[in-house]
């Protein structure tokens, strides 16, 4: 294979690849390097490996793939980079080129290329797994269980919330209009994401209720699928990523606003143009689609502009001390930092405490935590220490992926802190 085609995706991010000046400042903020203290953990090292790959000094070996995978894509390196090199983009591109050359390995190929793109079938598989979870796995804590056989092959004993008995999209109508007496101000499409759909359906219902109560008509298109983050960002499977992207673009073509409660989904949807747009049609369609996508807190503050009085505490949040964890995909990938804080601080009868390094990665990073659960736990433990130091009753965030990691971290560390989505703080 010619160099040009072998490294087609990496070449698109050549300026980032070349931009790195090897200063090593990224070591300071890299959650993986901070655990391992090894050069190949950090952006500078990974970028140099990719340069060596292009120079023909290295090959796509198993070891090489390991270095590519061992990155949470948290973007802390880029935020602190004096040369503003976006090495995580180069890493994603290298993952993609590897997949084009070598394919995706078992069992991930089955999951990424087959299960995730077939939403109904995926749902049924997860449900099937949830039956086994009920039969084989004792309840560990409340409704938190050790994930059962299908996912535990990936989850390696992680505490994760129970798969919901009924998925969100089976329980809510496609069109959700504001209740009688509330004028419809705006119409949005709700991208529910796999986690909210399968694991946190009550969160989805809560969001729909909150929005419709505040004059928003919420459309939940049945044809929407997985955002593709684990597929094209995690695994580098751009071909399957495009199928998912096309599905979502089509599912939401008739709305002007698309909201998401998951930072990772939001960011991935907005990443379609950057990574997946390979034809003039896709360039146009993905750009148009990405422009319509809003994180829920960003939508509330910047678009809906609700009066402060609209933010009242939920029963669970009333009188509680709350701290906020910035999902990487929200704070660094999308630059959304002030909006969630503004919401939380507007809620009366609740105390907000900022934690140290609130924007430090929790170590979940989807596929990353499946490959490297031990490492992921160590990264999470630093986050849990910061949470603990605030003395907060609730740690709020807006990424179901982070929520799963924080729940696991709280249980492992014997902390009573409750993990909630920011929208669950609201009545």
């Amino acid at each position, binding site marked *: 294979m010619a160099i040009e085609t072998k490294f087609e995706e990496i070449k698109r991010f050549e300026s980032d690849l*070349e*931009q790195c*000046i*090897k*200063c*090593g*400042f*990224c*070591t*300071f*903020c890299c959650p993986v390097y901070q655990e391992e*203290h*090894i*050069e*190949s953990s950090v952006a500078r*090292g990974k970028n*140099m*490996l990719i340069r*060596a790959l292009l120079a023909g*000094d*290295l090959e796509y*070996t198993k*070891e*090489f793939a390991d*270095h590519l995978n061992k990155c949470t894509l948290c973007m802390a390196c880029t935020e*602190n*980079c*004096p*040369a*503003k*090199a976006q090495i995580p983009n180069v890493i994603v591109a290298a993952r993609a080129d590897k997949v084009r050359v070598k394919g995706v390995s078992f069992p991930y190929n089955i999951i990424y290329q087959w299960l995730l793109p077939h939403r109904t079938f995926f749902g049924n598989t997860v449900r099937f797994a949830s039956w086994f979870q009920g039969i084989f796995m004792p309840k560990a804590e409340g409704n938190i269980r050790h994930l059962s056989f299908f996912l535990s092959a990936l989850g390696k004993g992680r505490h994760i919330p129970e798969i919901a008995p009924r998925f969100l999209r089976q329980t809510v109508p496609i069109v959700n209009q504001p209740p009688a007496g509330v004028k419809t101000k705006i119409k949005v499409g709700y991208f529910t994401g796999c986690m909210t759909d399968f694991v946190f359906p009550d969160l989805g219902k809560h969001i729909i209720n909150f929005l419709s109560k505040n004059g928003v008509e919420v459309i939940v298109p049945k044809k929407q699928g997985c955002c593709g983050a684990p597929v094209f960002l995690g695994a580098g499977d751009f071909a399957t990523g495009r199928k998912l992207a096309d599905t979502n673009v089509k599912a939401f073509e008739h709305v002007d606003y698309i909201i998401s409660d998951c930072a990772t989904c939001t960011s991935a949807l907005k990443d379609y143009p950057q990574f997946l747009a390979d034809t003039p049609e896709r360039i146009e369609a993905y750009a148009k689609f990405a422009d319509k996508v809003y994180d829920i807190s960003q939508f509330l503050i910047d678009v809906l502009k609700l009066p402060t009085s609209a933010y009242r505490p939920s029963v669970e949040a009333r009188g509680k001390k709350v701290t906020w964890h910035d999902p990487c995909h929200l704070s660094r990938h999308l630059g959304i930092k002030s909006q969630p804080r503004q919401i939380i601080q507007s809620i009366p009868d609740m105390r907000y405490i900022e934690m140290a390094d609130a924007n430090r990665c929790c170590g979940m990073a989807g596929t990353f935590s499946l490959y490297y659960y031990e490492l992921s736990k160590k990264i999470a433990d630093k986050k849990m220490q910061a949470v603990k130091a605030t003395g907060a009753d609730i740690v709020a965030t807006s990424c179901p992926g982070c929520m799963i990691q924080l729940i696991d971290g709280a249980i492992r560390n014997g902390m009573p802190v409750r993990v909630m989505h920011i929208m669950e703080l609201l009545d």
Partner: protein
Amino acid sequence: MIKSEYIAKLKKIVGKESVLSSKEDLTAYSYDATTTWAHMPDVVVLPTTSKQVSQILKLADEDKIPVTPRGGGTNVSGGSIPIKGGIVLCTTKMNKILEINKANLHAIVEPGVVLQDFNTVLAKQGLFFPPDPQSFLGCTMGGVVAENAGGPCCLKYGVTKQYTLGLEVVLANGYIMKIGGLTTKNRTGYELAMLFTGSEGTLGVITKITLRLLPMPPASKTIMAVYDDMAIAGEAISSILSNGVIPSKIEFIDNWGIRRIEELTPMDLPVEANALLLLESDGIQTAVEAEAQQIAHICKRSGAKGITLAKDQAEADRLWKARSGCFGAVFSAARTVLSEDIAVPRDKIPQFIQSCEEISRKYGVVIPLIGHAGDGNMHPSVLTDQRDTEHFGEARKAMDEIFETALSLGGVLSGEHGIGLEKQRFLKKAMDPVAIEIMKKIKGILDPNNILNPGKIWEEEA
């Protein structure tokens, strides 16, 4: 190449997860922050104790295997590049702060502690370690000492050697030696701790460091002075110092630097200015206020076009962020950057600035000029591309002439980066031949088999 049995022995010493030998891992230890050099090691070892370092060196000494000590790999003179292959002894896992003694104002640290982590811990106790190399986010304390690092603060506070009280050093034969102590005054024999400070990893591996600390100055004030003419800005520096004021920092940024920083991170810098000086006064609140006014007054009198006194810490931080952004601004501006760190007597700064402008014109190369002007330490960088032989050739000639100029003005080759690989071809011009001979003899006594960071500081005889 090192034999596999040798790698097995290393694994026995430090455990198998701390020995790296895959081609990928070796690639990741073949470079540091220097742009023009790289060389693969045969193996990377990450010890966690002095005893392990001792065992590694014993093994290497017996078989005469090169050992390149390395910390955060932020070196910009090629000091941490394993130019002879062999072992990279990386100290990043020896990263404990062992002691902070507020009553005696000292700290004991392991070599892999990152400077910024150290600073954070000190700040919580109201303590201060002044040397502030701009690589503070990545550089490790072992490197700070081995390179005798400087930084902006050194104008008022001096460089690392002024803070090194004692060291634990593992010698090439594996002996773990303690030198110096806990006291500021110590006149016991030769100043051996000074010998290892700035030794660039060629004399021993530093495994524990005792540092002198200062109380954190309670207040500081930042001043920005803008100039139409670079040389006039240079003259202002001498006027400030000769008027009896020693600011904690005087930094110089040229027009190229101002524009490039603005391009990377817009922060409303005066992009039309030909040069700006960034100054800081620190100490007790009332003294700082008075000194800042005096500095502003002198700057104005010396021809500054505009003067800004930072009104609060946020504005000061913003201005200093501009200065710390210079590193990235320069290094990301070209594929190859020949960045130097000559130092000249401070009254010669205007002359040096003028020469750099002439050299830039003569060879047709861009030479951004940024530096810790207050102590005469300037960082002229020649922007080039190693792949373009002709341009690279001109760039090298320009660099040679910059060195010649600095030396002719009574300056030195390196203010704070060290000689490493980058500057060794100039060493003979900058040092008495007998002095070079003595250095080699000292090296011969401490490291008879020449295993420690071989190929650095002086050129090898053909």
